[in-house]
């Protein structure tokens, strides 16, 4: 067991636990919600989702299908919405990651979050952080996306409870609230 990239062998049951951990831990540095973090992962090929939820305790990002399809685990990496369940943790080294925990602040919620609250764009709420992050990435890239782009973005996230009507309402409202927030910022 000299190559740290070889995962822990199930047949090597004699290795002591601390030793095994030491051999296999790799440092991983990236920017997370505007803070630099450095953690040690046993295997850089594990999904970013597991690192966020398991190692960093950020459980706002949800695991839905775990194959990159449903969008519940969406996070923003360097401005792009990605499903964190199929994003290898090792590949975010040095990059900028935003999760739902990084939205909003002491002044209140992010405009996208506010839109979902205002329009009741949720029922069970399990898909909501994914929707919020996907729309956040869209609005960062294009503050005034047309209806088509909004629909495209919402389409990437499964919701099993609603009929998407209120989620689309929330998306449109998010654009408005974002615009209002920008105007207020510029006025200050």
């Amino acid at each position, binding site marked *: 067991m000299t190559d740290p990239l070889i995962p822990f062998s199930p047949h090597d*049951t004699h290795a002591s636990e601390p030793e095994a951990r030491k051999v296999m831990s790799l440092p991983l540095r990236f920017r997370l919600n505007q803070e630099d973090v450095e953690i040690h992962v046993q295997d850089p090929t594990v999904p970013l989702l597991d690192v966020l939820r*398991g190692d960093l305790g950020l459980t706002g990002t949800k695991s839905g*299908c775990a194959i990159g399809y449903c969008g519940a685990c969406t996070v923003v990496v360097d401005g792009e919405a990605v499903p964190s369940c199929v994003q290898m943790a090792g590949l975010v080294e040095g990059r900028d990651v935003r999760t*739902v925990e990084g939205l909003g602040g002491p002044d209140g919620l992010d405009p996208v979050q506010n839109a979902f609250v205002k329009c009741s764009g949720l029922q069970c*709420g*399990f898909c909501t952080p994914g929707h919020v992050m996907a729309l956040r990435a869209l609005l960062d890239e294009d503050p005034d996306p047309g209806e088509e782009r909004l629909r495209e973005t919402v389409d990437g996230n499964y*919701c*099993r409870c609603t009929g998407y009507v209120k989620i689309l309402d929330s998306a449109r409202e998010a654009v408005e609230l974002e615009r209002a927030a920008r105007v207020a910022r510029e006025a200050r």
Partner: protein
Amino acid sequence: MSTAELPVTATDLDRTVLPPVIGSPVERIDAVEKVTGRAVYAGDNWAPRMLHGAVVRSPYASARILNVDTSRAERLPGVHAVVTGADTAGVKWGAFRPDLYPLAVDRVRYVGDEVAAVAARDPETARLAAGLIRVEYEVLPAVLSLDEALAEGAPLVHGDAPGNVAHEFGFDRGGADAWFDRSDVIVEGTWQTTRQWHGSLETIGCTAEWSQDRVSLWVNTQTPFLARQRYATALGLPLRAVRVVQTEIGGGFGGKSGDDNTSVICALLARRAGRPVQLVNTREEEFLASRPRIPMRYTVRLGFTKDGLVTAKDIEVIADNGAYTGKAQAVLGAATVRHDALFNYRAVRARSRLVYTNLEPTGALRGFGNPSADWAVGQAWDLAAEKLGIDVPDLFLLNAVESGSVSPHNHRISSCELKQCISKAAKAIDWEAKRAARKPNRGLAMGVSVHVSGRRSFGDYDGSSAIVRLTEDGRATVIVGEGEIGTGAHHPRADRRRRTRPARRGRLRDPPRHRPRHARTRRARESGHLCRGQRGQAGGRTGLPRSAGVGRPPTRSARRPVVGGERHCARTGRGRRRGPGERTGGQDRACRAVPAERPADRRHRLVRQPLRVPRREPVRQ
């Protein structure tokens, strides 16, 4: 009317003034928690020293377990507990027909059947360890379809279910044969549905922790009270030793109503490890071993007069139970009986069989049997409409029930606007234009369906009751058994409490009327009085119930006259406390259980009651 206009003067108190609730926009009380990712779902729970579980499942549809070797898994660093069927109480459990062991004992009966489980420091180690458990099987012949299961000499899924029939019941009310003889048009056909999964975004999961001889389970179950009863049975514990706390639920749709083994295995692991354990289904496990919709084969025969009046309905239902029963028995009951409340059938006859197969166990899914029934019977209605030359909605309108109708099961329909609903729906979907533009080989249909409303009970559980306790600071604590599953069930409770006046003004503080609602909510939360957040909880030691923002009187319906300590309607007897052995609901009366190995409990005696056929006069034509 805004909340600021709530009646509080002495004059107002003399009359009931309810502010409009329907149609006024409200903000969901759980929205902020959910959009910020702070809401705690089953997999988000965390406890100090918590371990993670993984389950070893059968790769065979039917096999005998010869040996389970867990030694290698136990030696893997980071593994803290391994359990097999030998570590369980060896008690079978199930909502109606106890046939499921927490972990397989001797036999596995479907691909996905739970054989052993592991708790380890992280999910990866647990899965590795699960892979190290060697199970020796002797593969047995399996029955993999309804036809195979019902064939002569088919291998038995359970030794105590001859012919693989788990449950069978039927009825003939109103004399179906006589009415078919008097019918001018008879249609019939057979339709079959398939398995359908809930596909909740969140999979089933549980966190278990023991304290001495008591276990606390944080489960994403839709039915904390029923789950508590069943888990206690499965663990061989008295009810007092099990506490079930409902976490936030990422989609239920019937699939999280506590018929699967996940929580029970989680509790077993936590007991063996002496540490909290979390066990969350993978997506694959969710498809392998949840409780999808029951495939049903429906043979329908309907009779009509030449004027289009329905006379009789005769159905035979064969339902795929899968390997274990769970709630399938009740679902089949709904699928057999409930449709009869839709139309003025003069006579109904049914024969329903729940059949064991070596496939994934089935259960409740959105509609609880009604969609399958209404889909099949609805197609027979389509055939009839074509034969009679009457448009489908017109045929529905001709036969739909209305207020005052009595079903062949003697269900009195006290309030009903089905006819208005059919007319409105036909208009809303532009039925006539679509009908006129109908192309060959293209489907066009409309259907009707009915489900429970108003009163909710299930077995020993009554979901329609609540305990309201006014607290020292003039607020109210409402204790209800209904779980919140994303539908906003907590909201109306908090909302309704908020929107009414104090019951006894002398004792209560004025409601904080001039503060915006969200501020009050926050205030209530900060003061320890929860408008939400304290989820449904069964058997709590802390017993902190949900609490309201404002003290308020019982609702209008709750102020009904109290007779003999029980609220009930004098006319219909609804809400009446039933005597021993007495139950409501046509399907219960109709139930005749197939003899099975099960304890002689109360329910068993009940379902074996003789069939009571209500007397009904044939309708003159």
